[in-house]
């Protein structure tokens, strides 16, 4: 028996939820469920919510190097509870499992790496005051109260990065005051973002270091069953538009061929306008053959209420995350009624 396989089997329900892979079916029995109108409690909500089955700290950054080229990085920490009821066990028997994914994309190269850790022994954890999230040496650590100023770092055999982030805007609740509905059945998650980070730092590539600057977007989400049984995967967009507006949008693909969409338009001052199912339209325009799959790498995004009609295309078609649960995640360039840069994550393309 391959231990990785063992891990895959076990992680499966959680990864399915976290990434929108097929075959959910797991119920939330025993875990807490998100409720509308609860509101957030900061800084406590920056930390972990072990009563919920899954949770993530998900950072993407669009960067420009001193060499003039575009780069993108991803830093992700997932938490999954194998069983409900976590009395804060401080040894190996803790049911909390952690997974870290890191990616680095340039126009010509793409790197990815993955880490796993058990909860309860200190190899991976999230603290609230001061805020810090880590798995092994990968970390996202606050330089002060809250999460306005962060250091983010990851390293692997062939790449590494260390970035300083500072927010020049407020935290943004997604959906209805942070209650983000994910299907017509009403499955939902708690979801807030910090899309206003300005970034500076260093990427380490096989050919040497590159100084970079740019923008980053942090997503925080936790739930116990965010997808419905009939949802097979998702396409998630985060756009930094020139002019300071931001757009978060996702399309959940359903087995009957229909989609469930959701979007949040964010003004430069951070005030969000949520749009429920049907307002955002995301249409694949072209696919690329990646890791033996056909993955859409050029899209048309339309949000008529905001006069938005743009085409987004991947900086690097081959931004495949070759991890235990593989998916596509990479930087995108925006043209059309608006321009800018952003990130695209696509899961469930088998």
């Amino acid at each position, binding site marked *: *028996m391959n*231990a990785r396989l063992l891990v895959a089997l076990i992680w499966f329900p959680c990864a399915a939820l976290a990434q929108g892979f097929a075959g959910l079916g797991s119920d939330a029995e025993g875990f807490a469920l998100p409720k509308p109108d609860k509101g957030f409690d900061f800084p406590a909500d920056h930390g972990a919510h072990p009563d919920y089955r899954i949770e993530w700290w998900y950072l993407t950054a669009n960067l420009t190097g001193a060499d003039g080229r575009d780069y993108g990085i991803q830093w992700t920490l997932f938490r999954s509870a194998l069983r409900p009821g976590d009395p804060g066990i401080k*040894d*190996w*028997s803790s*049911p909390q499992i952690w997974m870290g994914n890191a990616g680095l994309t340039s126009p010509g190269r793409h790197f990815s*790496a993955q880490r796993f850790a*058990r909860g309860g022994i200190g190899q991976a954890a999230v603290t609230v005051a001061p805020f810090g999230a880590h798995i092994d040496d990968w970390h996202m650590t606050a330089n002060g109260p809250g999460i306005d100023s962060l250091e983010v770092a990851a390293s*692997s055999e062939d790449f590494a990065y260390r970035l300083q982030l500072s927010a020049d805007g407020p935290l943004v609740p997604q959906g209805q005051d942070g209650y983000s509905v994910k299907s017509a059945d009403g499955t939902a998650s708690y979801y807030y973002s910090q899309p206003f980070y300005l970034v500076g730092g260093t990427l380490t590539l096989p050919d040497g270091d590159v100084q970079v600057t740019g923008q980053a977007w942090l997503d925080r989400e936790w739930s116990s069953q965010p997808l419905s049984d009939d949802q097979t995967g998702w396409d998630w967009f985060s756009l930094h538009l020139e002019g300071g507006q931001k757009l978060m949008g996702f399309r959940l693909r359903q087995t009957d061929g229909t989609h469930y969409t959701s979007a949040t338009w964010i003004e430069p001052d951070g005030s969000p306008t949520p749009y429920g199912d049907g307002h955002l339209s995301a249409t694949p325009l072209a696919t690329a053959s990646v890791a033996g799959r056909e993955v859409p790498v050029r899209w048309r995004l339309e949000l008529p209420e905001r006069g938005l009609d743009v085409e987004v295309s991947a900086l690097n078609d081959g931004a495949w995350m070759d991890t235990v649960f593989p998916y596509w995640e990479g930087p995108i360039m925006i043209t059309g009624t608006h321009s800018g840069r952003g990130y695209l994550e696509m899961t469930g393309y088998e």
Partner: protein
Amino acid sequence: MTRAALGALLSHWRRKPFQLVTLLVGLALATALWSGVQAINAEARASYDRAAAALGETRFARIARADGGMIAQETYVALRRAGWLVSPILEDRAEIGGASLRLVGFDPLTAPPSFLPGSGPGGAGGLAGFITPPGQVIVASGTAEDLSPEGGPEIVTVEGLAPGIGFTDIGIAQRLLQRPGQISHLILLPGQPMGRPDLQDIAPGLEIRPPAQSSDIARLTDSFHLNLTAFGLLSFAVGLFIVHGAVGLAFEQRRPVFRTLRALGLPLRRLLVLLVAELLIFALIAGAIGVSLGYVIAAALLPDVAATLRGLYGASVEGTLSLRPSWWIAGLGISVIGTGAAAAQSLWKVARMPLLAPARARAWALQSERALWAQGGAVVACLAVAAGAAAIGGLVASFTLLGALLIAAALSLPILLHLLLGLAARLARAPVTEWFWADTRQQLPGLSLALMALLLALSANIGVGTMVGSFRLTFTGWLDQRLVSDLYITARDEAEGQRLEAYLADKTDAILPIWSIKARVAGWPAEIYGVADNPIYPRNWPLLEAAPDVWEQVHAGTGALINEQLMRREGLAPGDRITLPGPWSVPVAGIYSDYGNSDAQIVIALDQLTSRYPEAERLDYGLLTDDPAGLARSLRDDFGLPAENMVDQASLKAFSLSVFERTFAVTGALNVLTLAIAGFAILTSLLTLATMRQPQLAPVWALGLTRAQLARIELGRALMLAALTFVLALPVGILLAWVLLNFINVDAFGWRLPMWLFPRDWLWLGLLSLLAAGLAALWPARRLARTPPADLLRIFANER
């Protein structure tokens, strides 16, 4: 024209479907055995690797405390948080379900892929069930039978694990072993990230130990697999005799067709192309059947039906038998090559056939005295090649020697039978007996190919069986010799070693220090061991050559033992002097066999080692005790020696032997299959002859022998020929084993396995070959007994 010609050629197979079946079955069986042997070899090697891995995690470098103590869990976390990719292992002996297990605790999330050898379903509850109490212990199914699950962790069985070892989660292991927060050592994973701090900065006192080198088992089995491969090749050759017979018969019977086609204007070249195309199609069909069949054989011989299904459905799971594309190519290729080899002679004959040649089918190889002489010449030529190869030496030459000897034996079989039968005919007095011998002699050319196949199968059986048996006896003896102590322990430092000696003094039957130094002796890398003066060594250490008072010499410091490898390289014999570091010139007192080690080894007295080489590491001991488990427990609990410093060699031995038994079972089954093919060859030959022989039998019948009598005579003849062939195969097989043991093993590995003879196996084989020949003759004999008298009468009307 081409189409019509093809139709005419193929119509032969429509009229003679049995011939077609013979051809395809023979070819498919030959390919199947070849492919099966290849698959079994590959699978066996993989399981050795798994076994070696299970016994020592040899594949990975590890980090351990330099002083041999336990690592704190905080150190593990600190290393991970500094970027070091390491995975924790806690191992110790534990009582689980009433049995003593070597428990290996690991972390499934950070352990390297394929850390856990073997395959099979996981336990219930997925990862949560594995890591949260009560947890699960993964063991081999044989081990599970000894365990009674009662309240403790769930017992999960997996194929391919070493016996006596249980794998569990590290957290569960810490609970079961009552070692909270402790780790035995860390596995150092490949692909470490850039920019890590030094190990000493994070965890002073830890050191990196490189992965162990290839195990002795793998080295030993190399020679075994080499021989198994040769055996597969022989099976293939035996199968080709059937193909040769079927193709030859079909070509002879189609001579009128060939002549007619040629006379009608079909160019010779096109005729040949058509025939080659026909054979190619047959070869591909039979090859495809053969590869599938070979897979079935391999899967049936290896108890892993689940792997078969996974293989057929394309899922490549590590450590299981999988049907790979390369297999298909190799299998089809060998089938085509084999068909070509078997049909070359027939095609050559067609190419040279005069246009106006008599079209009647000849009994396809009526052998004249001249042909026999020619064959005798070929035998002499083969023997000359064999002698030349034996003189040259080397692995390729040894295989040439093997092949030449076998061909010579096969070719000389008809000559020897011819001579023997002639002798018998001269001694015969009664008319029926006289006819019997004469008729047998007359039939010999038609049967000789099948009998040659039988000879090859039998001698291969005897040869490989003798080699395998000798190998096994030797290996068992070698294990006994090497694993003479019941429990092996390693002290963490020399002070602890002295304390261990004091502690164990009244708890064991004997404490045997196993101290050694590495050195260069006669230019070769070597190890010099010191042995204590204990009667167990003279009793259990078989020597290849020795002076009369060998052990007295060794213990008096006036003699040394050397291993076979050193003896062969340096051409040493007892009494010669060898110079050890120092320099110390000491006479060779004896030579011992050392299978599984390519380096030179010297054994001297322990006090000589300690006085002459004070730098020798004094950490390892072998203990003689009646209760190794109890002693290990008290060493761990009372003395505090970590379990990883104790090796219970009884389980190591049991496992090594079980690996070999599994492979021997495969050899046994292959023996039966090869014999079955030879039996099939006899059947096809007899059936072919039966139809041709009616003109010879009808007069005998007319003279008054009943059909039942004739049938009994036919049966008796087949049995007699098989018996004769077996008797002739016996020396050939022993010769084959001798070549395998004395040339191929020596050339490949530098040691000579002693040959043991197994007469009881031969008796069985003889009975088996009689049974095969008897069964093959039964059908034609029954057919003869039931031939309507009218058919026999018609012979006279038609033929005369």
